[in-house]
């Protein structure tokens, strides 16, 4: 092998990214990104000059946001409970319904045509945002918490079923085969070979989904599900930015609390679990 001066990147495929042309390629990439950002900003009519010029005025208009109306907090406690229920009710229902769906979407449990059909359905479901489901539900059932709970539940099923099914398909096939060789039935293999291996994933993913559902509940509340999200949208529409700020503050606190709670829950459940 020669010295660096004799570096020849044509020697081997693996050496291609190195050699003297590396810095030019990096510069090229950088310019490419700059041009791309420039072109898109021009296309969507964002221009930095206006942004900087109008910033003080914008900050001045939104200064009410930094001055939350603390006196509004007592009347927001009711809506806060509604928000928590909007997140809390759909989570276990979603988990409960996602488990059978995930079994039907796993190649090591069902024939591949069933699995692929189920996976396609899950993908279609996941392609529809909760807010769209909410609007459809509202059209059918009217405003209120009920369509919100339905929309969040449906959203939970899609995501949980996909992640559960991925975990099921990752279970070591050899361990399942060795159970089959004891003469166990297919369902016994599922019970003792698959379930114990995926339960940790089911628990931790479900807790994570609860956190997501808290955020979803805030969003869907604004389009009619009620709760804090609804308070936020009415305050904004009424230009009561100080009240809106109080709502946002409460939302932040609740979501933060939900995260802390799930961290705690996880550490209790997985305490002493040396495989995790």
């Amino acid at each position, binding site marked *: 092998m020669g010295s660096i001066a004799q570096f020849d990147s044509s020697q081997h495929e693996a050496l291609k990214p190195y050699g003297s042309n590396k810095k030019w390629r990096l510069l090229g990439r950088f310019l490419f990104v700059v041009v791309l950002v420039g072109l898109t900003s021009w296309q969507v009519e964002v221009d930095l000059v206006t942004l900087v010029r109008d910033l003080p005025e914008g900050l001045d208009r939104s200064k009410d946001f930094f001055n939350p109306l603390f006196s509004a907090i007592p009347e927001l406690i009711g809506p806060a409970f509604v928000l928590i229920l909007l997140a809390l009710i759909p989570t276990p229902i979603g988990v409960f319904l996602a488990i059978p769906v995930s079994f039907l979407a796993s190649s090591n449990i069902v024939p591949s045509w069933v699995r692929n059909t189920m996976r396609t359905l899950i993908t279609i479901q996941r392609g529809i945002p909760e807010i769209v489901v909410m609007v459809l539900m509202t059209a059918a059932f009217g405003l209120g918490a009920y369509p919100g709970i339905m929309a969040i539940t449906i959203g939970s099923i899609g995501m949980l079923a996909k992640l559960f099914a991925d975990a099921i398909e990752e279970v070591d096939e050899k361990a399942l085969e060795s159970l089959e060789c004891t003469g166990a039935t297919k369902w016994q293999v599922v019970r*003792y070979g698959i379930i114990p291996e995926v339960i940790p994933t089911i628990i931790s993913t479900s807790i994570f989904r609860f956190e997501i559902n808290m955020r979803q509940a805030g969003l869907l509340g604004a389009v009619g599900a009620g709760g804090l999200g609804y308070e936020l949208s009415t305050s904004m529409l009424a230009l009561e930015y100080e009240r809106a700020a109080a709502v946002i503050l409460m939302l932040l606190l609740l979501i933060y609390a939900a995260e802390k709670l799930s961290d705690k829950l996880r550490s209790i459940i997985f305490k002493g679990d040396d495989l995790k």
Partner: protein
Amino acid sequence: MLEVNNLTKTVKNGKSILNGITFRVEAGEFVGVLGPSGAGKSLSIRCVLGLTKASSGDIYFEDNKDRIYHLTQLSGKKLRYARMKMGVIFQGSNLVRRLTVLENVMLGRLARIPAWRSWLYGFTDAEARRAMKALNQIGMGEYAGRLTGSLSGGEMQRVAIARAINQNPALYIADEPVSSLDPKNARSIMRLLAPLAAEKGVLGVFHQPDLVAKYCTRMIGLRNGKVIYDGVPSSDSDLLREIYGEELDELADISSLSLHEDDPLSQQIKA
């Protein structure tokens, strides 16, 4: 007890891997199957267990109650009954990692409990005690409560043996039970298998001729999907070269380490 007659297996691309394998295993025998990679050792075992369907040939298995199973013809419920009587010892890593050691051993009895009970109630106290007995038999009693995934390779292999013992089979079938273990653990696993062989019978696939020569009562040499040796275990180098061909030289490097643990040099290395 186990009779394999003219077993053949041709895979999709027309390549034949098993070319008429014939051998028997009698009760009380410890049969070690040797052969280079691709000789068809594991595939033969898979055919016996009904995990892979043979292209032609017959496998008969007689359990300890004189029932005869025509394994190559069985499927569904009947195949499960036959499997209940065969204690399979896989590589230990094939255990359920997230169950405790005791639970894994209890799984050896899974086929004997009704499906509804496995979902609604699980195993009984009597089944737990029975599994504990099997664990104690191989000196793993103190590991009963540990999560199986946290054990070392040698410990897992012992648990796999305890599961097979708990199953109370008519014959033990071991597919490379010591391949992933260090020489010391490999020998202690062989020492556990030897009495099981004397009591029931063991058919095992191995990669270490020295271990087969030391512990097995009969040796079967496979090459290119045919039985080319069936007789007393031997570490005769001409015979091994006939079985392994070129691969013998690579094998010798490894097995010599485990063969002469008592010689002065390895004593020095240990010290």
